[in-house]
């Protein structure tokens, strides 16, 4: 089943549900909906909810399969001649570290969506991504520190990459604090979007910190000019794990976005109810 099939099903569903209310959908609108499903069409939260409800089980299953395959491959991967079995921490550590930066990238795109295109779901996406990104960053820091203990002889070293990832973690926490400090989601969304875009400056600093400064952390060995230097025996499990973690993020993110939409609906209903109740 491809993307188009889902789109078709989702449209059928939403049309069927809305039949009673808007039996006469203008022909032009209907043509737009069926012709090209763009990001703007997803702006309708109801359509987004129906689409993700169908998509999520498949995504979750795919994530589980890839995660199991990746874990199995990591388990049977050979030990490194220098690092021994501890090299296997890499299969968890590196995908987490990649995702920690990728999630901020996703939030930056969502921030542009909020500020430039005023997409109604952009701030939902940004808000839902922040705690997930913070969790990935935290896991990258913890696994890195556990890997550093046997390899470098210390849990923590104030080197450029570790420090910049720690700053990224602090910025995730600051962003979550900002979301939680303001009651009105629309107002918080615009403030958070600006902070996200300012914080995006940290991403290239993290990526290139190991090249610019001569540090303890090893230089890039997978995403670099001239191809990866990593051996195939390590590279393939690593890429499978990276794909699995990316899908894990997609699954968690869509689920968190659904929750956020539902939470906002509950809040709106509560506000209406509170207003209607006699004083």
């Amino acid at each position, binding site marked *: 089943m491809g993307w188009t099939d889902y789109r078709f099903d989702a449209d059928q569903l939403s049309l069927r549900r809305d039949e009673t209310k808007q039996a006469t959908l203008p022909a032009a609108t209907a043509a737009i909906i069926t012709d090209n499903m763009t990001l703007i069409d997803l702006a309708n939260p109801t359509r987004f909810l129906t689409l993700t409800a169908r998509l999520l089980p498949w995504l979750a299953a795919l994530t589980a399969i890839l995660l199991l395959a990746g874990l199995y491959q990591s388990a049977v991967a050979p030990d490194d001649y220098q690092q021994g079995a501890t090299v296997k921490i890499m299969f968890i550590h590196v995908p987490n570290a990649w995702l920690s930066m990728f999630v901020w990238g996703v939030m930056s795109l969502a921030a542009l969506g909020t*500020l430039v295109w005023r997409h109604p779901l952009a701030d939902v996406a940004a808000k839902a991504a922040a705690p997930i990104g913070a969790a990935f960053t935290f896991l990258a820091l913890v696994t890195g520190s556990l890997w550093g203990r046997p390899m470098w002889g210390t849990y923590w070293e104030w080197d450029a990459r570790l*420090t910049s990832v720690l*700053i990224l973690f*602090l*910025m995730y*926490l*600051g962003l979550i*604090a*900002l979301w939680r*400090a*303001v009651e009105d989601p629309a*107002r*918080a969304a*615009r*403030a958070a979007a*600006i*902070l996200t*875009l*300012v*914080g995006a*400056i940290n991403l290239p*600093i993290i990526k290139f910190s190991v090249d610019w400064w001569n540090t303890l952390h090893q230089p890039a060995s997978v995403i670099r000019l001239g191809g990866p230097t990593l051996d195939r025996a390590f590279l393939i499990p690593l890429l499978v794990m990276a794909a699995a973690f990316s899908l894990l993020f997609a699954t968690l993110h869509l689920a968190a976005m659904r929750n956020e939409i539902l939470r906002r609906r509950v809040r709106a209903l509560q506000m209406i109810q509170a207003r209607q109740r006699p004083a």
Partner: protein
Amino acid sequence: MTALAALIQRDIKIALRVGGGALIGVLFFLTVVVLMPFAVGPDLALLTRLGPAILWLGALLASLLTLDRLFMADHEDGSLDLIVMSRTPLELACAAKALAHWLAAGLPLIIAAPVLGLLLNLDAASTSAVALTLLAGTPALTFTGMIGAALSVTLHRGGLLLAVLVLPLSIPVLIFGVAASQAAISGPLSFGTPFSILCALSLVSFVIGPIAAAASLRHGLD
């Protein structure tokens, strides 16, 4: 241009006169530096070694303390709305306000630093190195801090939220500021490398700070 000059003049006057509170930052700076020997012990050799770091930390906290007045007072008396609606580009107005704030609150810290250096047993060369790095680095603190000040004024939340938002952004400035001072005093590294990066951070913040602050004022005030 005259509008911006008038804005700078007005902000400096307000900050320096009664009720402005820009010089409280210097008092706070003094108090933080005096607290340090009580915390680490009156060991002069140790204080000499920690001196640049203590001065930088004190200056960072003192400039953070005065930041939430940057837009708050104007927001309270309504003049911020006039600035936002005026024909002068909001980015330039923000830059002018930050410059005025730095002249009123940041420059006194740099002038006070050599005096406080005496308390920390720093010699003349080290003191001038620290003052020079503060001169190059504190504009970056003010201009990046302005983003946090603009966000917190639109959210009607000051205080701790401002600190949480601004402090991570100021870490690079602190790193290279202290690195440059240490390099000038003892370090094997040359003074020029961290000092140029510090200047670069300030220059970058001159561009990003006003744009981001203006964006958040425009989107936030309604």
